[in-house]
């Protein structure tokens, strides 16, 4: 029988143990709640010009470093090391080929705002460091990324290649750096390491659809890596790949009985030559969406049927699991999404989403308020002009304001390399053909002028256009600079690129919200759509031909100089040492030379015949050749002195 005090102690100890266990269990669940997650999504959308858009979206998230330590089981370690080493708070790296066709594919929706990127490589990053260290960190970051993604991103390291915009690109306190390489090629070697960051690589799940020849045969492809890191939320990595493809269908050119041409009916197999045979097993969710734009929805409504997956205008090949309708702020239905959960499909029953059109249909995608484009003016290799035009697309400003104060704001951000020396004072604005004063149109302007071989020229402008305007043009004059011969690329005669300018419209919001069916789980793709994003568009890349030197000149100069030197030294030595006719005179003296010609004499010598000595005829005056000789020496010496003088001056 235990004494009561021991029993009490035992009770107390067991209670303590129980408490400890509960605490451990609680912390374990708390840790489990903050685990790494991976989701994959695919969005398909038919485009008005008979093409199809496919948008792959992969999100990996890692909890804050303090909770998880250094071990990752889904999140790519390369990225977390990158974030920790370079103290990155936000980063976006995109590889793009092709130009986003704003007229046909839209400019007002979240897809074009977030995924229409300038051709080549674009990199921007916000660092969590004191301002003095950011440039050095940026340099190391570009090198690391070039090794990670097999691209020449290291060309962005020098200060002539990147800029630090203040408000034209994104609002920041000076810790943002932006750089773009317009001529960078994008190919399988950039996609390979990008796919290796995914937990299932390209072996399972939605990424297994990526048949490389299909992706690179598209009209536009852009792979993007975006990461956001914070102490509270950890690291969120979004990898997206946006491809615009021409589906290879046989029925493409069918004419309908009504006389119009049917849009091509396509399916995933037509786009990628493969079907989707299951999800990535470690993904939290795996979904495929088909987006039917507002233009099509309006047509369906007009035709009188309701917008379901099987209506008078089109039919989806597989019945969707769910359909989501977007509600704009007037509670009118705009676009709709049909959702498929890949969990329900496997290799026996693969998923092959497709759309078949029943009636010919023409629709258009909503565009940004102005179509911004940029071009070069002028000719010759000395000077030129950059012109930017804004063409109104007829989008009425939502705030119905018919007063004269109605204006549309546009922010322009442009980086110009140093060898295109822009004269910012020569900025001229023309609205509907009439020249306007700068102060009428330009609200705010911030210019970082270029410095030769040091800095590019950065320009950020806030413009205010009257709502009734049809066309606005801005022009800037520039002079073309000269590069050192070593700085020219191997194909210098092609020209040099001015990266795309970014035009954004801060009063227009491109977000779309879809009602969430499952409050516990939000699709990252739809979350991105819901984010506030201003309408943005990138202009074209400009190709500026610069004066190139004649690259063969170093070789020519060496050859020419060596020839002259050889001639000079040769002649000098000849003049000093060679005595012409000495041999003859010697032979004459010895009496060998007789009146026979020189050639028979040589032949006789060659034959080895003994030549009989005969009377010498050495009566030639000796003073004349000597004075001639002196004259020759003097002449050569004068030439030499002149040449020395010219080469030294």
């Amino acid at each position: 029988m235990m004494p009561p005090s021991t029993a009490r102690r035992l009770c107390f100890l067991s209670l303590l143990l129980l408490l400890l266990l509960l605490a451990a269990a609680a912390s374990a669940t708390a840790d489990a709640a903050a685990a790494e997650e991976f989701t994959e999504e695919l969005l398909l959308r038919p485009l008005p010009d008979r093409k199809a858009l496919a948008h792959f979206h992969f999100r990996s998230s890692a909890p804050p470093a303090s909770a998880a330590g250094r071990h990752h089981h889904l999140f790519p370690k390369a990225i977390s090391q990158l974030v920790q080493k370079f103290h990155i708070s936000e980063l976006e790296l995109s590889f793009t080929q092709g130009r986003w066709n704003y007229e046909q594919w839209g400019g007002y929706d979240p897809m074009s705002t977030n995924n229409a990127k300038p051709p080549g490589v674009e990199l921007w990053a916000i660092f969590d460091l004191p301002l003095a260290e950011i440039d050095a960190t940026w340099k190391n970051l570009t090198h690391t990324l070039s090794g990670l993604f097999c691209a020449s991103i290291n060309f962005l390291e020098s200060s002539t290649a990147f800029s630090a915009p203040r408000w034209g690109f994104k609002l920041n306190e000076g810790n943002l750096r932006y750089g773009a390489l317009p001529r960078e090629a994008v190919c399988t070697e950039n996609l390979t390491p990008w796919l290796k960051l995914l937990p299932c690589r390209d072996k399972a799940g939605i990424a297994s659809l990526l048949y490389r020849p299909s992706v690179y045969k598209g009209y536009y492809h852009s792979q993007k890596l975006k990461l956001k890191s914070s102490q509270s939320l950890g690291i969120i990595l979004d990898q997206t790949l946006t491809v615009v493809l021409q589906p290879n269908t046989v029925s493409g050119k069918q004419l309908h009985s009504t006389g119009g041409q049917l849009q091509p009916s396509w399916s995933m197999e037509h786009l990628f030559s493969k079907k989707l045979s299951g999800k990535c097993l470690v993904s939290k969710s795996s979904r495929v969406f088909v987006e039917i734009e507002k233009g099509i929805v309006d047509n369906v409504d007009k035709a009188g049927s309701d917008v379901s997956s099987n209506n008078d205008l089109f039919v989806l090949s597989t019945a969707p699991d769910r359909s989501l309708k977007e509600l704009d702020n007037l509670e009118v239905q705009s676009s709709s999404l049909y959702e498929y959960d890949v969990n329900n499909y496997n290799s026996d029953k693969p998923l092959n989403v497709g759309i078949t059109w029943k009636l010919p249909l023409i629709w258009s995608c909503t565009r940004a308020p102005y179509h911004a484009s940029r071009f070069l003016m002028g000719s010759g290799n000395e000077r030129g002009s950059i012109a930017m035009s804004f063409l109104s697309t007829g989008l009425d400003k939502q705030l119905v304001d018919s007063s004269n104060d109605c204006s549309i704001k546009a922010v322009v951000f442009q980086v110009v390399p140093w060898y295109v020396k822009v004269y910012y004072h020569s900025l001229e604005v023309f609205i509907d053909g009439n020249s306007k004063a700068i102060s009428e149109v330009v609200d705010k302007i911030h210019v970082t002028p270029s410095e030769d071989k040091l800095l590019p020229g950065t320009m950020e402008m806030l413009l205010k256009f009257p709502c009734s305007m049809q066309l606005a043009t801005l022009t800037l004059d520039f002079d073309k600079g000269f590069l050192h011969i070593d700085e020219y690329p191997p194909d210098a005669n092609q020209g040099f690129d001015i990266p795309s300018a970014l035009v954004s419209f801060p009063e227009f919001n491109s977000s779309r919200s879809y009602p969430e069916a499952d409050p516990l789980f939000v699709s990252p793709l739809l979350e991105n759509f819901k984010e506030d994003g201003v309408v943005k568009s990138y202009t074209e890349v400009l190709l500026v031909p610069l004066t190139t030197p004649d690259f063969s000149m170093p070789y020519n100069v060496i050859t020419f100089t060596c020839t002259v030197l050889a001639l000079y030294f040769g002649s000098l030595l000849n003049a000093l040492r060679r005595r012409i006719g000495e041999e003859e005179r010697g032979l004459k003296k010895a009496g060998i030379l007789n009146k026979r010609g020189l050639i028979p004499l040589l032949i006789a010598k060659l034959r080895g015949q003994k030549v009989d000595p005969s009377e010498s005829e050495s009566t030639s005056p000796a003073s004349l050749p000597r004075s001639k000789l002196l004259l020759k020496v003097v002449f050569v010496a004068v030439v030499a002195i002149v040449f020395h003088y010219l080469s030294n001056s």
Partner: protein
Amino acid sequence: MICRFNYRHMANTLSLYRTVKRLGIPDERIILMLADDMACNPRNNYPAQVFNNENHQLNLYGDNVEVDYRGYEVTVENFLRVLTGRHESAVPRSKRLLSDEGSHILLYMTGHGGDEFLKFQDNEELQSHDLADAVKQMKEKHRFKELLIMVDTCQAATLFSQLQSPGVLAIGSSMKGENSYSHHLDSDIGVSVVDRFTFHTLAFFEKLNMYSNASLNSLFNSYDPSMLLSTAYYRMDLYKRALNEVPVTNFFGSVMKTIHTDSAYTGFLAAHDAELPLSVGNNILDHVMLQNEASARRSNIEEMNVSFSKFCISFI
């Protein structure tokens, strides 16, 4: 740079890259330098595909290619930096040749060349003296144990005429004064798709797998001058081993020799023992024996690891 006559050089390099990967060398041990973008070039009718045969059966670009230096980065300076290891501190590991004194390196170069030079990017040349100097530096810095240089250009043998470092074996597709020719023209793509020397090299390797022990001698003797239309000349005066004893997988593949043993691995135990107090009595002798055995085995394994680390630099 869009030059059509480079397609077959890309195909040469990629064919060898594929062969070397197939025989076991991983991407992290391969440095691939491609001077031009052929696969995703707008003029290529087959995007993301590079072929070395007009039957188009094999896509050399595949799904899994990693190019370390491409486009404007392929310069003589970068090439010599890779060989000698003299990079700026920011250069990432995937762009460095991380070899040591036990490494076997394969260096394959193809492109346009001539008497004692190889052309880079249409505006630079690599001279045979530069290459010999770089190899000499590599030897001084113990960056290789054996080096095989394969060159497929016109007058290829002149490129390694200045080499003097021991342990270097070199083979070129043609001798001084001879041209190297392309194999066949693909009328669909419109250009020649492979060179003769590389085509015959690949024909030799297609018959092999990772465990073959075909020797270098058989590779070098497989070149038939009447098929190549040039003389494949090789230089073995700096290489001490007999060519018929060296398997091709020494350079072109990566084979780890595994020794099956029934006993447990005591490598860590030996290191750990140093901290433990020696137990008394007749265990002392056992401990000492264990220690010796374990350390011997560990040094064997290290040696194996070092001598079988293969590197391949493939360049165009």
